[in-house]
């Protein structure tokens, strides 16, 4: 419990919170701890801003990729076809 209530966190934990907050999964307390950490840790500040930049870039481009099950389906069809060719 004592670990959970620490205000000053390690860089490792800060990074973890930073990643989580990129996906809106960090709790308020985690965000507060991250902000406090960023006040005095330059390296994490850099990492944090880079991380946010990446999220922004991805959101901006509306990048797309195949749904998992569509991809699997495609793979199945393709493998069938492939076998025909390899005979």
């Amino acid at each position, binding site marked *: 419990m004592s670990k959970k209530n620490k205000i000053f966190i390690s860089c490792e934990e800060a990074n973890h919170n930073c990643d989580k907050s990129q996906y809106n999964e960090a709790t308020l307390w985690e965000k507060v701890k991250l902000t406090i950490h960023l006040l005095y840790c330059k390296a994490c500040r850099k990492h944090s801003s880079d991380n946010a930049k990446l999220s922004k870039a991805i959101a901006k*481009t509306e990048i797309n990729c195949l749904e998992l099950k569509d991809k699997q389906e495609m793979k199945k069809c393709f493998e069938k076809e492939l076998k025909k060719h390899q005979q």
Partner: protein
Amino acid sequence: MPKNLIDPNKWIDLYSDYLFNFTITRVKDRDTAQDLVQETFFAGLKSMKNFKGEASERTWLISILKRKIIDHYRKINSKKGKAEVRINYKSDSEDEGDWLEERVADPFDKTAEDNLENTELGLAIHNCIEKLPVKQAEVFKMKTILGYETEAICNELDITASNLWVIIHRARTTMVVCLEKNWF
């Protein structure tokens, strides 16, 4: 000059997302895009012996895909009215309404330049994803692009949550470095 080799076994894993992203910026419809990508792979298989190894596999597949996209537009325009304005009521989509208003371009939409830049950035991001290890790429795509819940991914891939965050962290760090080199 070393020749590029062709190996269709890994095509789907390596290139399907890249080709799909390439297509979706041009045809705007998931199902059509998916079909076109599928056809491209089949066509690639059929003409494998024509692959001379001068370009990379992906470039070669993209060139087939471009043909397919052109053919697609030819096909939908070849039948009767070329000048006909096609506003068909889509029967298959549930989430999209049939109202005309929803089909008119958004006035606050991006400018052509923005769109161009975004398309390029999208391809740059895909390039960087391709350089990630397979597992990282998979998790990163599911989490970031498809927006799956953490729990869903964990179940799907049979990993723990902390496992997932470590993978995500590594993937993101690599992605930042890669994009920094190629884009920002």
